[in-house]
């Protein structure tokens, strides 16, 4: 085994990761706050009114980041889960478990903000189009993952069963993303793409990106926080947790 | 042929046992003892590869069983707390189906003989749901009559049996040992097996 691998294993152990996560957390909180304030400032105070949609379009600064995060977190969760299944790292299962509720929250927020946007724009809270439906499925997948894990008491077994589900469910993410391309629907297509030039006003794009970054930082901070709780709970009988706890006394 | 060393078993937060080791060669039987809940069933399931090994090694013919995989299972016969018989099927159908799934050739005549040997003559064609507790156990044990795999792992085979049936099963195990087979067995009753060598291991 070479040195780099050993290093990796060191941080893949809950014992090493717990204090590291504690130290990183404040930075992510600070970054989330800064990006969030900047994004909202740009989105709500600087950006001009949209010609077609009026002021209602400002929901975009919340809706798009939430939608992106819900999909991205699922991918990350599946990645950690798969890693845990393949190599039996204890930490990766915990990461997957920690990410799921936040992912579900963002999926819910995407639906909520989308619904509040749809009422003024399309005249209905909800329509059954492909993207909306597949986002709803994503929420169901998150809930299924959480329900499955909480139904199994043995954490090791819960991790592994959850991992299989997460990996099987990954097929849904590309479906959401490409649904607007594959079926022509009510919902807007991508306006941010790497190949074409942005079709939105530059300032709106900036607002959206800043908000997305804020959500990103927030998600990382919350996941770190939750994983610390999970680590403590699962490792409560180990010596290092005892030392950790008594050192705080 | 079967070597176990430094085996550990943790359930929940409880370490059931640690540092368990033994060796077993052809014609030998391990008689596993211990009070209720000391981890006998857990040990047997680890031996079969049903539960993962957390610490320690299990070697079969010198190789780790995890590596051997199917080759190990090919030589293994496990009989657990549950009977692994279908209540809807008759004893005969159960016996034939389980042989087929284990990839063994068993003709109907041999199966009928096995059932008769275990005192189930006249019940071959009655769905197992109607059998008494002891009769169900006998159906499960009828598999052993024509079983020629090397390693038998039996978890409390005598439960619910009457003394005559216990004698009979003990005879089957004895014959297996004399053919050079290995057996790992737990029971809270007397084993009364005279053939082969019986080693004892007490957990907890």
């Amino acid at each position: 085994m070479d040195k780099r691998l050993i290093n990796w294993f060191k941080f893949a152990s809950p014992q090493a990761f717990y204090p590291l996560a504690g130290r990183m957390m404040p930075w992510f909180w600070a970054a989330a706050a800064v990006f969030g304030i900047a994004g909202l400032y740009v989105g709500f105070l600087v950006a001009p009114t949209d010609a077609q949609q009026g002021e209602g379009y400002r929901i975009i600064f919340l809706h798009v980041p939430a939608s992106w995060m819900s999909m991205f977190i699922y991918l990350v969760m599946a990645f950690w889960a798969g890693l845990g299944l393949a190599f039996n790292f204890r930490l990766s299962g915990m990461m997957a478990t920690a990410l799921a509720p936040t992912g579900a929250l963002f999926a819910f927020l995407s639906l909520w903000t989308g619904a509040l946007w749809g009422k003024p724009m399309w005249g209905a809270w909800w329509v059954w189009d492909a993207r909306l439906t597949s986002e709803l499925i994503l929420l169901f997948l998150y809930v299924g993952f959480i329900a499955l894990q909480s139904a199994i008491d043995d954490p090791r077994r819960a991790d592994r069963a959850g991992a299989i589900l997460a990996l099987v469910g990954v097929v849904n993410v590309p479906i959401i993303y490409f649904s607007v391309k594959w079926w022509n629907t009510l919902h807007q297509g991508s306006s941010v793409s790497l190949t074409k030039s942005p079709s939105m006003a530059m300032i709106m794009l900036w607002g959206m990106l800043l908000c997305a970054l804020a959500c990103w930082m927030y998600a990382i901070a919350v996941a770190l926080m939750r994983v610390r709780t999970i680590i403590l709970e699962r490792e409560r009988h180990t010596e290092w947790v005892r030392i950790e706890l008594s050192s705080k006394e | 042929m079967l070597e176990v060393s430094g085996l550990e078993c943790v359930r929940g937060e409880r370490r059931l046992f640690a540092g368990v080791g033994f060796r077993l060669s052809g014609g030998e039987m391990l008689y596993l003892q211990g009070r209720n809940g000391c981890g006998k069933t857990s040990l047997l399931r680890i031996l079969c590869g049903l539960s993962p090994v957390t610490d320690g090694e299990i070697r079969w013919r010198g190789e780790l069983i995890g590596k051997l995989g199917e080759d190990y299972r090919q030589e293994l016969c496990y009989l657990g707390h549950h009977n692994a018989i279908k209540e809807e099927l008759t004893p005969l159908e159960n016996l034939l189906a389980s042989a087929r799934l284990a990839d063994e050739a068993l003709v109907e005549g041999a199966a009928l003989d096995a059932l008769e040997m275990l005192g189930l003559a006249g019940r071959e064609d009655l769905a197992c749901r109607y059998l008494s507790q002891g009769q169900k156990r006998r159906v499960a044990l009828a598999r052993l009559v024509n079983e020629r795999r090397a390693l038998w792992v039996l978890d409390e085979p005598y439960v619910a049996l009457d003394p005559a049936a216990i004698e009979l099963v003990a005879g089957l195990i004895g014959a297996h040992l004399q053919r050079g087979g290995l057996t790992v067995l737990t029971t809270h009753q007397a084993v009364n097996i005279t053939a082969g060598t019986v080693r004892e291991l007490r957990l907890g």
Partner: protein
Amino acid sequence: MLKLVRAIISRDLRLAMRRRTDIVSALFFFIIVVSLFPLGVGPEPELLRKLAPGVLWVAALLATMLSLPRLFADDQRDGTLEQLALAPQPLGLIVLGKVLAHWLVSGLPLALLAPVLGLQFDLSNDALWVLACSLLIGTPALSGIGAIGAALTLGVRGGGVLLSLLVLPLYIPVLIFGAGAVDATVTGLGAQAHLSLLAALTLGGVFFAPWPTAAALRIALE
């Protein structure tokens, strides 16, 4: 290899014949759910014709799903599953056999029965024909995907309902293409594209699903 799959199928079919009520009742469940809708919705033929593909497919999906919890639970309860896991062949193959057997007793009869029920909804001959085809092509995917859910929830508290929670979202693509095929025929478009996609889903479902299922079963046995 093939011998093993055959052995599993024949055992499961024999068990199914022994509890023949299982098959018959799944069919009756299908019939009843389909017949409930006109009761709940009202009898206008125009409305019913529009409803038909969706209702028939949803009912087929629910009927398949109802029999899923028992796919492995019976085997686990009586210890047979341990024996299967200890068999010298790959567990995935055994699962494949069970999936095929499940389809033979649940999906196939549904597909054969559906056209008759379609008549209640005043569907055209073409549409009836496509309905049967789509069910024939699509239901194996339901059995395959369902097996994953059944294995994951095996021995888990509240298994039955948790199972439907896990499996139904994964069934949605099958439902969309299946009902879409019939709908396309009713509205005069071709069903070709939908059916090909359905076939792709089925191939994927039947040959890919047994492996995660086998992994989940091993976890359940630990």
